[in-house]
């Protein structure tokens, strides 16, 4: 290099998080803790019925409470925003309920007050009258029901991958995605064996420990929104669209997020606080309680019917899947889950004849969206439980059966895209090795039976999406990175700094990462779907390379080649002055799936592969079981920060363990009965498997920055079915619905019917 720099490897080093000191000392900045002078707190009044026409909202008692600034309803919102609807797929969600309420917990009105306790108290005095309508909760029923959650559907038209969404009316099906490969009908007729099963998953919540929170500060012809958001660029675009403003009138800033997991994507509270602040001419903050958080976003419950035709030789010759996604009352990003995860529903197997139908369905439940894995854990639950059942039925070893059928490098997945840099086989073999699969397993005692199981899954990354980054070299030789990737705990600030440092020959710890601020940091689609390392990583690398080239040109121009960076600036500008600004933009190539066949030659920039091996011990008298061993194996490309990758893998697996063993939102007539951490349990120290390991298969990802790929969701894939498969191995019963509770195991062992799903 023409400019003198360090020569230490920055990529591949386990750099401690840049913000470590702030986080261990309680000084890290979260929107949760932000206050502005004159700020009002908003408290939401919510619907208590699942479906009904709003007849009247009585706010008089609330308005009379001392200290109340104002009470705002949906009709008030319309005085500022004539069409106050938002959403990434459909413009279906009102800022506050208009005409109708569609689920219990839907925001209907807001009280504003200087004192949050006053707002809280006044909100309880609001009364609403409704003409109740019949409601529908089950995703399969809703698909054909005559009760309609929305009369008419208006596609947002924002994202190119959702171009098939249609304006429809009188249906609860927001999107039906289909994939046809080969001739499944004929292959089933010719198959030696046919197997069919139905699986369910439950509604769960992300429960980030920093609940959803947003704060808006009005200006004369502008608004600034401080928000715990994973998608600041989208928030700006969507708020500007709603207000009829240009993007540069809306400024969106984030801080560190106290967890995200998909809960803080697209628009959550941002439209509401923006409108309230503009109406009140004061800053307005709404921070949800843990309880309220359950009413804003969930993970799709699903029903999956899956059918396979298998030859005598143990080859899967045909597979048919029907997946119903319970989207709740507003589509959020459900249609993308339905399509983008839907096309993987046949699993990581080489199957010539595939027929898939995937339905995004509206119901009268809280909206469902993205949650770590974006639909993949629900599908792997079905196809890996099913695959295990087939192996058992055919008396084939589960690993051997998978080896016979697995998609090998270069073979096309059902969607038509060849598997490249997808270490499915290597992951499977590593799981087998770590589980010592070749040796007989300890079977336990008569009272405490032991068993083991495996599962493997895969995911495509979101495409086509754009990331832009700016690298700014200051005149003293220090450097700032401007990017809109949100660090919600995954360690993106650190990984991006490592990429910049590697290119520029600097120390990662010395790179300043500027947090998302749409007035300052450039566009990024969002921090979701394990896309940042690959997409933003590439943009950041290009920005750093651009800065490096410009710095070298500057050195040549100033006759300072080979000098330290400050000397280059001094030679050019006569003092410590000036900047070198590098810009990088990245968008991967993409081919949209064909509308009729679902076929695409290039559906994803990279594949994520993850699997699990599990050993369980089941108490045959009570059904109580514990996971004695959990092995996670993932294809992680070339890790930028190996320690951060390991923590992402074990963290994702433990989260999925909660979704497998106990987490479940319980609804009675559409009313959620367990919206608190007292009644909705998330994993703690005492829930961990005795033996938990997370390992990776290193496989260079072509096109990834330094061979890296995304890893945030990968370890969620295999956990649930591996546990069900191990329980089957231990006690000979099959669990078809999540969560796998001791009661479910007990009922299955004693031939009792399972509990109602919700």
């Amino acid at each position, binding site marked *: 290099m023409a400019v003198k720099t360090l020569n230490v490897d920055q990529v591949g080093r*386990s750099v*401690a*998080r840049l*913000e*470590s*000191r*702030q*986080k*261990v*000392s*309680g*000084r*890290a900045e*979260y929107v*949760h*803790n932000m206050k502005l002078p004159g700020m009002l707190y908003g408290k939401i009044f919510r619907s208590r019925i699942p479906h009904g026409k709003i007849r009247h909202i009585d706010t008089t008692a609330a308005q009379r409470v001392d200290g109340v600034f104002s009470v705002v309803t949906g009709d008030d919102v319309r005085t500022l925003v004539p069409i106050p609807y938002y959403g990434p797929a459909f413009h279906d969600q009102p800022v506050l309920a208009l005409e109708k309420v569609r689920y219990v917990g839907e925001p209907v009105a807001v009280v504003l007050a200087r004192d949050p*306790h006053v707002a809280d108290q006044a909100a309880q005095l609001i009364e609403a009258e409704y003409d109740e309508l019949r409601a529908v909760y089950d995703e399969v029923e809703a698909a054909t029901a005559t009760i309609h959650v929305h009369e008419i559907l208006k596609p947002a038209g924002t994202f190119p991958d959702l171009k098939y969404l249609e304006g429809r009316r009188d249906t609860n099906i927001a999107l039906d995605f289909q994939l046809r490969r080969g001739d499944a009908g004929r292959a089933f007729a010719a198959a030696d064996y046919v197997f069919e099963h139905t699986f369910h998953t439950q509604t769960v919540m*992300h*429960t*980030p*420990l*920093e*609940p959803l929170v947003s704060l808006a500060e009005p200006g004369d012809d502008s608004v600034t929104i401080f928000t715990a958001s994973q998608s600041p660029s989208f928030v700006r675009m969507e708020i500007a669209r709603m207000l009829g403003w240009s993007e540069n009138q809306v400024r969106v800033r984030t801080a*560190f*997020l*106290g*967890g*995200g*997991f998909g809960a803080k994507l697209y628009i959550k509270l941002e439209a509401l606080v923006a409108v309230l602040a503009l109406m009140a001419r004061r800053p307005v903050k709404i921070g949800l*309680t*843990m*309880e309220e958080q359950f009413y804003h976003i969930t993970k799709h419950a699903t029903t999956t019917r899956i059918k396979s035709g298998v030859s005598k030789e143990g080859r899967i010759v045909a597979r048919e899947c029907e997946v119903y996604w319970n989207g709740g009352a507003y589509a959020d990003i459900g249609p993308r889950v339905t399509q983008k995860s839907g096309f993987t529903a046949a699993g990581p197997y080489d199957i010539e004849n595939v027929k898939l139908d995937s339905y995004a369905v509206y119901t009268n439940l809280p909206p469902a969206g993205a949650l770590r894995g974006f639909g993949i854990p629900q599908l792997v639950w079905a196809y890996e439980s099913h695959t295990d059942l087939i192996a058992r039925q055919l008396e084939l070893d589960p690993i051997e059966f998978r080896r016979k059928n697995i998609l090998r490098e270069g073979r096309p997945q059902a969607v038509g895209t060849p598997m490249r840099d997808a270490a499915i086989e290597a992951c499977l073999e590593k799981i087998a090795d770590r589980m010592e699969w070749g040796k007989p397993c300890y079977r336990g005692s008569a009272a405490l039976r032991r068993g083991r199981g495996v599962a493997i899954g895969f995911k495509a990354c979101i495409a086509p999406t754009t990331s832009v980054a700016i690298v700014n070299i200051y005149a003293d030789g220090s450097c700032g990175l401007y990017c809109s990737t949100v660090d*919600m*705990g*995954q*360690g993106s600030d650190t990984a991006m700094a490592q990429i910049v440092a590697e290119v520029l020959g600097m120390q990662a710890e010395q790179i300043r990462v500027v947090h998302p601020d749409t007035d300052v940091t450039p566009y990024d689609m969002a921090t979701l779907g394990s896309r940042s390392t690959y997409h933003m990583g590439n943009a950041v690398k290009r920005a750093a390379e651009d800065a490096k080239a410009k710095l070298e040109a500057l050195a040549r121009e100033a006759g300072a080649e080979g000098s330290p960076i400050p000397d280059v600036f001094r030679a050019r500008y006569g003092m410590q002055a000036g900047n070198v600004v590098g810009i990088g933009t990245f968008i991967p190539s993409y081919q949209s799936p064909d509308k009729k066949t679902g076929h695409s030659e290039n559906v994803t920039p990279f594949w994520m592969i993850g699997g699990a091996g599990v050993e369980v011990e089941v108490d045959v008298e009570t059904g109580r079981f514990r996971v004695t061993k959990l092995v996670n194996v993932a294809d992680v490309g070339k890790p930028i920060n190996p*320690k*951060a990758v390991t*923590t992402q893998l*074990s*963290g*994702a*697996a*433990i*989260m999925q363990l909660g979704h497998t063993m106990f987490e479940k939102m319980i609804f009675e007539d559409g009313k959620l009965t367990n919206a*608190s*951490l*007292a009644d909705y349990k*998330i*994993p*703690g*120290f*005492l829930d*961990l498997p005795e033996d*938990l390991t997370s390992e990776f298969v290193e496989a260079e990802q072509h096109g990834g920055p330094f061979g890296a790929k995304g890893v945030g969701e990968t370890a969620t894939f295999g956990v649930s079915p591996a546990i069900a498969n191990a329980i089957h191995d231990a006690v000979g019963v099959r669990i078809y619905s999540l969560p796998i509770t001791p009661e479910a195991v007990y009922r299955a062992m004693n031939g009792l019917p399972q509990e109602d799903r919700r």
Partner: protein
Amino acid sequence: MNRRIRFTLNGERVEADVAPHHNLVELLAERFDLVGARESCGQGLCGCCTVLVDGRAVSACLYLASFVDGANVVTIESLDAAGGLHPVQEAFIENAAFQCGFCTPGFVLMTAQLLEEKPDPSDEEIRHYLSGNLCRCAAYPEIVDAVKAAARKTAAKGR
């Protein structure tokens, strides 16, 4: 209705006017700008709002502000007040024992208290002692490593 209380906060004598319904999280954040203790679950189940009152860890979301009248209150912000990090904080950083960091102050304070009671805790003791603190990022394996590393650091300093 407000009541004037006096207490010791991170070694300093302070006073404040508190309403009967104010909890300790609000008092610390609103009156003293100490935001390391955070209300999350609001039910004393997650440990994000942990502070020490008279040497005992409490959930500040369930602790009425007026109860600290005359008490000695220690928050996460005091641990590195002298400039250097506490050995527990160092160990958490070195072992990557946090991700989003929202729950971290609670874990750090609990660990400091654990090591005062049991300088060399077993894995089992660590898990049980910290079972009232939740980490949704699930940095649990790394937290166990950090607690053991902190124990070693503390022992080495004591020698």
